[in-house]
Every structure is written in structure tokens, then in C-alpha cells.
């Protein structure tokens, strides 16, 4: 599609703000906005046109438990925390982002061009594995130790005692087992970085009998996959 056509730009912006772009088109459009301040302005203008409806929507006091949960999840962004703690905080950040999928989308519109250089340390994302609908379901991050990669659920996975989640590296089309994953968010499985396939090749998660595949190859359905983005430090 050609994105330099003003009518098309306006139409996509209108549907983006209306919320009717299909998930995939929406993500593509968000990437365009990020690089195109003029398009971001068209989007902001559409948001302005609809704003009166949100202004008129009645307020409703949320119960106190919402703030307690927010406060508990945001308490840990200390400027000078022990390294391990900081790493965990960063992980929580990425997990939150993936689970919510709500933040990246909206915020791109408003992203500032010049970012502060002194933000909190960011985790090195090695791979994001997406399910069939394209939503992130597992995430691989460098650490906690050098030469290690932690793979954890990006959101709660449907647990079933009849199967295990097994991680595979697929280098040049040939799968090799990397280990079992834990379905609870926050419970990472650690694998050796040198077992990962090279950047560009795939990581995949399949459903296997409890304890994992006994054949050395995936036997159940592949529920999630994603490219290795970089070689972890």
C-alpha cells in the first residue's frame, strides 16, 4: 500500500482512532506513526474530534484495590537498586508491556523525539514469541547472568496437567530441544545462550506430554514462535 496518499492516510488515521483496524494493520500503522510526525498529527486531530464523547462519559470511582495493585507494581523503579533487583524491575516492565499490549500502541503517538539518556536500564530482549493471533505469549531476555537467557510467559498460559510447554530452537529448519518452560508469568526458565539458534532463526514452543517430548522432536502443536533478534551478550 502507498502511504503517501493523503486520503488514505486520513482514512487509516480515522479507523485507527475509531479502533476498527484489525490488530495486524493496527500494528503496522503504529510503526508508521512512530516515524512520521505529520501522520501523528492527523491521528491526534481525529482523537480531538471524538474527545467530547469521552469528556461526557460519566466518571466512576474505581475501588481502592486498583490503586493498591498499581502502587505495588510500580513501587520498584529505584534509581539505585541492587543490580538483580533492577533487572527484575525491567523484566516486570517488559512483561507488563506484553501482557497489556496496551501501552506501546497508544504511546507511540506521543513519543518525544529526543529521549533522556539516563533512563532506567532496559532489558535486552532476545526474542518475543507470538501466538497464532500475533499476540506475544513468551519472551526471552538476556540474563540474569552473562551467557544466560531467561524465557518466561508474557501472560498467564492455560495450564493443563496433561501437557508441558517445551521450547525449541529451530536452526536452518531443524528443531533442537531447549527445555521446558513454566507457564506462570514471573517464573523464568534459564537456558544457555550458546544453545540458541542464530539471529533470524526461530524459537518455538510446542505442547508436549508431561516432562517433554521423548523423541527429541516436537510431537504436539506449536503454539507460539518468534525470531531470535540478536545474540545475547
Amino acid at each position, binding site marked *: 500500500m502507498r502511504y503517501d496518499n493523503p486520503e488514505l492516510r486520513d482514512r487509516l488515521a480515522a479507523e485507527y482512532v475509531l479502533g476498527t483496524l484489525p490488530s495486524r494493520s493496527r500494528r503496522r500503522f503504529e510503526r508508521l506513526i512512530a516515524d512520521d510526525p505529520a501522520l501523528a498529527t492527523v491521528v491526534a486531530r481525529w*482523537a480531538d474530534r471524538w474527545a*467530547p*464523547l469521552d469528556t461526557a462519559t460519566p466518571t466512576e470511582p474505581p475501588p481502592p484495590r486498583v490503586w493498591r495493585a*498499581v502502587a505495588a507494581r*510500580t513501587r520498584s523503579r529505584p534509581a539505585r537498586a541492587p543490580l538483580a533487583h533492577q533487572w527484575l524491575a525491567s523484566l516486570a516492565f517488559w512483561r507488563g508491556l506484553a501482557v497489556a499490549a496496551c501501552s506501546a500502541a497508544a*504511546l507511540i503517538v506521543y513519543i518525544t523525539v529526543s529521549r533522556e539518556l539516563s533512563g532506567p536500564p532496559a532489558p535486552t530482549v532476545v526474542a518475543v514469541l507470538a501466538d497464532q493471533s500475533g499476540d506475544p505469549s513468551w519472551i526471552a531476555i538476556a540474563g540474569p547472568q552473562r551467557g544466560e537467557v531467561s524465557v518466561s510467559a508474557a501472560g498467564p498460559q492455560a495450564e493443563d496437567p496433561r501437557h508441558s510447554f517445551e521450547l525449541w530452537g529451530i536452526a536452518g529448519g531443524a528443531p533442537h530441544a531447549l527445555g521446558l518452560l513454566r507457564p506462570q508469568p514471573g517464573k523464568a526458565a534459564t537456558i544457555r545462550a550458546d544453545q540458541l539458534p542464530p539471529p533470524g532463526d526461530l524459537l518455538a514452543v510446542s505442547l508436549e506430554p508431561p516432562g517433554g517430548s521423548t523423541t527429541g522432536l516436537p510431537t504436539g502443536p506449536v503454539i507460539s514462535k518468534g525470531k531470535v533478534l540478536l545474540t545475547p551478550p
Partner: protein
Amino acid sequence: MKRFEDRSGFGSPLQLEQLVRRTSRADATAFAMLYRQSAPKLFGIALRIVGNRDEAEEVLQESFVAVWQRAGDYDAQRGSAAGWLVTIVRHCAIDHLRRRARRPEGRKAPDELLTSLASGDRGADRSAELDALQRCLGELDEQPRRAILLAYLYGFTREEIAVALAAPVGTVKSWLRRGTERLKRCLDP
């Protein structure tokens, strides 16, 4: 930015902007104030879209975690702080709906909700923008107007609109396209 005045439930726009800026410097007090000031309005919007309190609470929680983490990305040049917060909550609520199969039921017809929103906003300082939006929506044909309102007010997908209005998806797409074009011409003469 004059998008949200005091009566909107967001507090003064300048103050809100300042709270977001302080939040970006990890100022927990400012963040708590930002929450106190904007959460009731944002919860109302989340509730309108996802249709039940439990899920609206989840959406609100995710949204504010995102606000804390990404407040540094907010750029006042590109829009009001209230608009930034609403955008986060709307997208989060729409994503939330798309991730689950079941849809909320028993909601007001979109025209009915529009009328009740417009009549509830009746103060002396009632917004001219809302009047204009309501008038321009009123100029659309009935089905395109319903399609557009189902999308904006409730986060319906094209397919869900097609089911709700008993029309092919292709027709819904053209309603959305032509409806928003007409709306824009009417709003910015």
C-alpha cells in the same frame, strides 16, 4: 490544549500535564495525585468499553502501570495529557476485548447512549464541541452512524458491527469509511 476542561473530571489541563512530567521523573507522589485526579474519568471510559467492572479494573490497572513506565514519552507538543491518558485506556480496553471471546451483553443501543451522554452534559458550560459532534453524527444515515458509534463507544470490530447490524463486512467497511469522511467535513467546515 483546551480539549478537557475542569468539568471533565480531569482537573486543570496544565496541572495534569505537570503531574505527568513529574511522574516521568519517578515522582511517586505526583503519580498518586495523577491517579487520584484522572482515574475516575478513565475508569468510566474503560467501563463503557469493556462493559463490566472486573475487567474495567484490569484495564485501568494495566493502563496506569503503562503510564508510570512511559510517562517520559509524553510530549505536550503532540496533544493534551488528558488525551494521552484516554488514548492509553481506550487502546488497552480494545485490546482486552479482542483477547477474549465473550462480549459484554445488555448494553444500551449506541444512539441511546449518545443521547444520554449528551443530555447528561448539560451544565452552563456545556461543550460546544459535543453539540457539534452530536449534530454531525445526526447528519449521517442511521446504519453508518450506528456502526461508527458501536466502534467508538464500545470498541466493536468490523465483524462484530456486521453481526450487530446484520450487514456484510464489506458494507460495514464502507459505512465506516464514508461515515468518518462525512463527519470530518461536517466538523471542520
